[in-house]
């Protein structure tokens, strides 16, 4: 008994020394190898008398466990030491740049269209579209703007044929006509899209974007129009209060017609919407003219409602402080990067329009 105790003491002591893996393995062999001291002690078990054998076996086992554990922890200790010393030589300059990042961007016009769609979606509007190439009938005549009407001069039209029958739509209003012809009331739609006028300077571009709105039902009146636009403008500019002014105006396809101004002030050269005593015209609207309803086979004695048209680019300019309309369409890489939006910034009802 005292022999094995001695062995234990001796080896535990040895294992406390600073050892290499090889020495630990050597010790392992000395103890548990074929002729190892512990192995040999087990061999003596059989020759012991019964009453001693049990005790001896129990002691021997516990000594064996103790030594094995010690050896294992010693080996682990050495391993960790080795890793640690290796790590000291593995220091990277983490301030070096990462691999190339290519961040894509969404054009402000697209972002604004998505914002508008999201806002109108909240109050039950759906999105309709129409062709960029239109015929004279859908663009003008059906909208109560007959040929030889001076109102046609308000639109500098691009024509695709010499008879002036095929043209690039000058507004999104023909989508009203198409939508109503293809369906039955009620209608509650917006129609964003490209529009074209042969006009080009700082504030006009031969192509621009509009969103049309149309709500036709049995009792839709000018109060609903005001409410709808008030809600839209507040939501779009993300302000709680808005100053809005309806001014009588004239569009052949609405009667009564109005232009809508919103209040703003200049702060540090930037336009701030909602406050101040200056007015900014942002859209045209009105009650859909009975002649238009007749033209699309909707009974004006039964159904009525409003329509509006808003310049999308201009809304974007106001909201995001963009000065030059022409820059929208010039594909300057710097501009796209600066004014573009991250593709994950999807305007939505539940996330809100922006972060």
């Amino acid at each position, binding site marked *: 008994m005292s022999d094995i105790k001695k062995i234990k003491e001796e080896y535990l002591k040895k294992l406390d020394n600073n050892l290499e893996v090889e020495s630990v393995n050597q010790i392992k062999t000395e103890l548990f190898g074929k002729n190892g001291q512990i192995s040999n002690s087990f061999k003596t078990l059989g020759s012991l008398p019964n009453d001693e054998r049990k005790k001896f076996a129990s002691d021997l086992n516990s000594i064996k466990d103790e030594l094995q554990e010690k050896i294992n922890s010693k080996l682990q200790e050495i391993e960790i030491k080795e890793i640690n010393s290796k790590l000291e030589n593995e220091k990277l300059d983490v301030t*070096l*740049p990462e*691999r*190339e990042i*290519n961040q*894509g*961007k969404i*054009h402000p016009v*697209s972002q604004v269209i998505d914002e508008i769609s999201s806002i109108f979606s909240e*109050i*039950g*509007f*759906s999105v309709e*579209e129409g*062709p960029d*190439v*239109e015929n004279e009938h*859908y663009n003008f005549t059906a909208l109560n703007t007959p040929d*030889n009407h*001076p*109102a046609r001069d308000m639109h500098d039209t*691009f024509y*695709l044929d*010499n008879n002036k029958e*095929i043209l*690039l739509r000058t507004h999104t209003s023909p989508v009203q006509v198409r939508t109503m012809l293809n369906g039955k009331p009620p209608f*509650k739609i917006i129609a964003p899209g*490209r529009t*074209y006028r*042969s*006009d*080009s300077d700082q504030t006009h571009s*031969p*192509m621009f974007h509009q969103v049309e709105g149309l709500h036709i039902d049995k*009792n839709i*009146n*000018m*109060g609903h129009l*005001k*409410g709808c636009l*008030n809600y839209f403008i507040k939501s779009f500019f993300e302000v709680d209060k808005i100053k809005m*002014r*309806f*001014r*009588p*105006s*004239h569009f*052949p396809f609405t*009667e*009564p017609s109005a232009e809508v101004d919103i209040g703003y002030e200049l702060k540090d050269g930037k336009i701030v919407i909602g406050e101040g005593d200056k007015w900014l015209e942002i859209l045209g609207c009105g*009650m859909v003219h*009975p002649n238009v309803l007749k033209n699309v086979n909707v009974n004006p004695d039964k159904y*009525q409602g409003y329509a509006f048209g808003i310049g999308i680019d201009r809304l974007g300019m106001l909201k995001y402080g963009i000065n030059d309309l022409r820059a929208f369409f010039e*594909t*300057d*890489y710097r501009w*796209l990067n600066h004014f*573009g939006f991250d593709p*994950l910034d*999807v305007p939505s009802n539940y996330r809100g329009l922006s972060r």
Partner: protein
Amino acid sequence: MKFTMSWLKEHLETKHKDTQIIDKLTDVGLEVESFENISSDLDNFKIAKIINAEQHPNADRLRICDVDIGQQNIVKVVCGAPNAKKGLLTVYAGPGSVIPKNNMKLTVSKIRGITSYGMLCSESELKLSDESEGITELKPSKYSDKIGKNFFNNNNEKVVDLSITPNRPDCLGVRGIARDLAAAGTGKLKNISHKNIKKDGSQNIKVSITKDKKQGCTIFGSCLIKGVTNKESPKWLKEKITSLGQKPISAIVDITNYVMLDLNRPLHAYDADKIDREIIVRDSKKGETFEALDNKEYKLDDGMCVISDKSGVLGLGGVIGGTRSGTELKTKNILLESAYFIPRSIRKTSKLLNIDTDAKFRFERGIDPQSIETGLLKASQLISEICGGKISKFDIQKIKQYKNSEIKFNTSLFEKITGFKIKDNEIIKILNDLGFKVSRKKSELKLKVPSWRPDISQPIDIVEEVVRIKGYENIETIEPEKKRFKDTLNKQQKLFHFLQRSVASKGYLETVTWSFTDSRINNFFKENLKEIKIVNPISLDLDVLRNSIFSNLAFYLKKNLDRGFKDISLFEIGPIFKNNQPGEQLTVIGAIKSGKISRLNWNEKERLVDIFDVKKDLIQTLMEAGYDKQSFFIRDKSPTYYHPGKSGSVYLDKDDIDPVAYFGELHPNIVKKLDIKTEGVVGFEIYLDYLKDNKIKLKDQKSNFEYSDYQKSERDFAFVVDKNYKAQDLIEIISSIDKSLIRSIKIFDIYEGEKIPDGKKSIALNVTIQSSEKTLEENDLEKINKLIISTVESKSGAKIRS
């Protein structure tokens, strides 16, 4: 439409302030473009104070004065006046001013080496007196608090400029504006008082309106005024004309213009002695010519309304007069015309000849047909007052009678449209004030529309009249209701939205370019589509609708390269046009990429962009949009604007007829012709209209989750195939051998060269084999191995590389 406040007040009796009037104009729908003082040369003369005066170093008699000209501006002025002393209040004229005495225009100039900004003026220079000894001395008691203000303030008339919508011709005259204001409660419309004029003798130039088919004139009223002395207009008239930015010409012309601006009643004065016998109002004949008052010779088409005499055309009725019969200062006898021309005829003629005049602008919108005599009366009276002369009786020729139109109006329509109520009496008052004649039968009103309102023809127009005069601010704001009838976006729109953001998320900047493009660039990309010319393009290099999304992208790629950018990824989603009819357009995504990947990156080797970069972006985008990559099929056919050997098309399914997308390198010849200087240009297109809407909703998209935990095995193969043999075919052969065992196939090497025969290549692939039923034994694997090799060899003619 411009007018001065004082002119307005000739028609409107009002105690309202100018600013209130301006606000009211806006409220009733007459949009105020501007409201300004008449700018005048005399505005340049300011009250100023000399705050310091020093001797000029190079001239004994000159002084250098620091002059306070207000608003904290101090300028240096060199002055020779002996009385130019510190503290003196005087009159300063800035650079650009014109000195009244000698009409000299001041500039910034050096006087003996010292720069002088403007000058200090003597009374004689200002034409105030003959005093020229020194500069003007102003009394401190009166002027010390007015530094910087205009010295001449006699001209403080304010001009209003309105933008009149095309439906309101009546407001192209000051009186119409006054009427609207009066109806809206901003004063009272004054009555026009006509002095009785003495009419002497008959109008003895015969006037006839022919019964031509397209006759554009229905009423021609005229009178003769004999023995006039035409001259410069009197001051009041000149001022009226100039205040509106027009040029005074002679009394007679100015008077006709004045009446037009005042009453919206265009008139024309002929030199009666130049008229050959009689006036015939008729259709023009093709080829007729005449010289108009704009000194241009016009060649007429047939069917234009002309005023003619026995010798030919005198003028285009309601559009422009001619030089042959124009009045001059020496004109003695005049024929004054007051007529009605049909708007459509006016518009057609002026459009064809491209003439725009004040008269045309008004007739085109509709002149009051009942104002013929009022116009003659007012103008002839003024002419005889200013130029003398005897006025003949009026001659009115008519081929059509104009009666006021009538409308039945149920007052309940007002509330139905506007959402708010006003009393019937108020409606009636407003309409009366606007000139309607109203008779009432319970809630139905019978209305006679005033003859100057051609825009009013049905009940809804009456609603507009009443609500705009009552004020739009009375309309309530009703909270929007959320009821919906349809989903916000349909499937195609959702796809558009999704793909747009999906492409952007792969590092492309979205751009929006014109739907039109340069035909020379378009030609490279239009394939067999028809060129769609714009008849009136904004510029010659934007002359066609784009047949391809690439023409503008390539153009702007070049522009950005020229700006110094090298690695560019751009995309656009938008329409391309197949033909010039509505609906013949497709929605396309075009993406273009140039330059290098990992340029100048410390830990990645840089390389040129290649078609497998864009192929990855394309395929991944389609996958993200929910299309199954397993069924995609790639062909090496593509449009000719791609590199013939480095491009392909993507089909959602092998059996599809139309590809949904193309990808590849841009054709080197096009890159060269467009002078695009970059190392490589690759791109892709996705045709949204060809993307099948076969997607089931997300909730139905997920099948049962099945997986295998049995051991996977991987085996590598290398097959030697013909050089043109397609990897896709090899993969298809292998994957169709046993879909339940072959889980994935990866191509890890393509090799040509040593040990491979000419015209051949080696494709090395790694196949993952796994059963969902058991762990495969070695002999199972061996079986499938052999099957792969034998199938590939028999179906493709490939040889396994040993």
